[in-house]
């Protein structure tokens, strides 16, 4: 059985609630990611900001907006040991493109990873990354 921890990205990129939207935009642009978690000083998750949440500020002053103003409150807790099917059904039902993974052993509401819709597509495609790259490589001799 495939579990969430087999497919998720370990570690989460995060910002603090009073960080400016500029910080969030820089993080997304530099790391080429589509979502950033918002956590407080103790590491507990408050919410998450997706690319579309940030795009609402297009043409506006990013410095004058705080992360907590554009974030979506985080209410869904996914355990790393959940079967992947259960998580996919949850994502389908809630119409969300990513879920933060909360490990109860690491502490309450501490995100340990993220699972995106693209990770699910990779799982469904049955393509192992690296296999195709090796197939496409032209032999040197």
């Amino acid at each position, binding site marked *: 059985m495939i579990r969430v921890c087999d497919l998720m990205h370990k570690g989460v990129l995060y910002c603090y609630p009073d960080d400016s939207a*500029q910080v969030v935009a820089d993080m997304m*642009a530099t790391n080429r990611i589509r979502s950033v978690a918002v956590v407080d000083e103790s590491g507990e998750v408050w919410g998450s900001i997706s690319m579309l949440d940030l795009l609402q500020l*297009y043409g506006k002053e990013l410095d004058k907006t705080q992360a907590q103003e554009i974030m979506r409150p985080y209410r869904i807790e996914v355990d790393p040991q959940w079967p992947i099917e259960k998580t996919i059904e949850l994502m389908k039902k809630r119409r969300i493109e990513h879920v933060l993974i909360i490990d109860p052993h690491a502490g309450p509401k501490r995100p340990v990873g993220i699972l995106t819709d693209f990770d699910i597509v990779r799982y469904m495609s049955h*393509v192992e990354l690296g296999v195709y790259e090796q197939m496409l490589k032209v032999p040197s001799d």
Partner: protein
Amino acid sequence: MGHFPRCHVEERVMRLMKRGAITVGEEATVREVAQVMVVNRIGYCVVVNEKHEVVGIISPRSILRAFGVDLDGTKAKDILLPYTITITPSSPLSEAVALMVEKRVDHLVVIADRPGSRAVYGILHGEDLVRAMARNQETKA
């Protein structure tokens, strides 16, 4: 030498769009579409008909919704988001962003300015918009 008054020029889609797009035919299976996305590391796939006209777009979320059905028996045309949003290279970027946020899509298909044309001209990525937002703020500062 005289100074020209600074005037505000509205930015157009053509400044940030990428020419060309990854496409699949209407008859491709969902698994094939997922494989195209994973191998090319892209978060979209444009579906075209035999005349290479845009029929719709498939996002990772569309594939996620197809979880549980026969991926090798379901066609791209059964899960695509019908292409009803018209964006051209000369459309203002602010209009494109408003469309993305309203329809909750990360990519927009750009079609040529010619009347009646439905040929794929390019793609406007949300990632490129975020990168431009981060860059614009840096230049202002």
